């Protein structure tokens, strides 16, 4: 199985929403690697085919942090938080790889998995009350059998900072 590069964007100005549209339907799985930061502790939400995942999306999240060392599993009840970003810092980004399996299929519900981590000891900011997690592993499914041709990423508050990047790939049989 190979990973075919489709595109990469680097934000040149603060941007609230990044949308990949008319995604080729020739791959097996859709993979988005992102490295983002925001002007404040923040979270990222994803939309599929223009639909907010606040309805029809079921997921569980495993959080891990180093200090204190612990882990927790949560069943998020809020909006479909995909991963946290980080406070604005020239060297600090929230990094994540998000996979939508069988994205071109019209027979299966869209299953999404992700792992995310920040390149600082502060970790990702899933919680807006100051709890940071070094690693964040959400997985779930979206109750839609429509093939995925568009994915959007947005911050809950504010913008993605300049320098944030999004790279899009598809997996292939070759």
């Amino acid at each position, binding site marked *: 199985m190979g990973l075919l590069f489709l595109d990469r*964007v680097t934000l040149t100005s603060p941007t609230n929403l*990044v949308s990949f*549209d008319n995604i080729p339907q020739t791959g097996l799985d859709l993979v988005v690697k992102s490295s983002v930061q925001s002007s404040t502790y923040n979270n990222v939400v994803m939309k599929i085919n223009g639909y907010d995942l606040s309805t029809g999306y079921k997921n569980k999240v495993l959080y891990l942090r180093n200090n204190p060392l612990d882990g927790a599993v949560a069943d998020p009840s*809020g909006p479909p938080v995909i991963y946290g970003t980080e406070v604005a810092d020239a060297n600090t980004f929230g990094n994540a790889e998000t996979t939508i399996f069988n994205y071109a299929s019209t027979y299966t519900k869209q299953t999404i998995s992700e792992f995310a981590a920040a390149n600082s000891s502060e970790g990702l900011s899933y919680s807006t009350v100051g709890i940071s997690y070094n690693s964040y592993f959400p997985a779930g499914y979206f109750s839609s059998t429509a093939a995925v041709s568009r994915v959007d990423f947005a911050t*809950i508050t504010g913008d993605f900072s300049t320098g944030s990047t999004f790279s899009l790939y598809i997996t292939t049989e070759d």
Partner: protein
Amino acid sequence: MSEIPTKLIVDLSKPVGERETIVPLTAEEIAEAEVRQVEAEARKEAEALALAEKQAAKESANSKLAALGLSAEEIAAITGA
């Protein structure tokens, strides 16, 4: 959020170099963003309350264990703190 919120559209049906367009958010998208922000604030308050309650329960439990004669090390050993 910047003064005029924008979105970057990457249209993968177009040739490389012609794919990216930056446009202002629509009124509907701005409204969605505002809803997300309000929901985040509500969740923040709920999380803060839950965290405070959990911390209070932990402190209460530790106090009761100490009153039974357990040392701080023994309490840490059984609570994993």
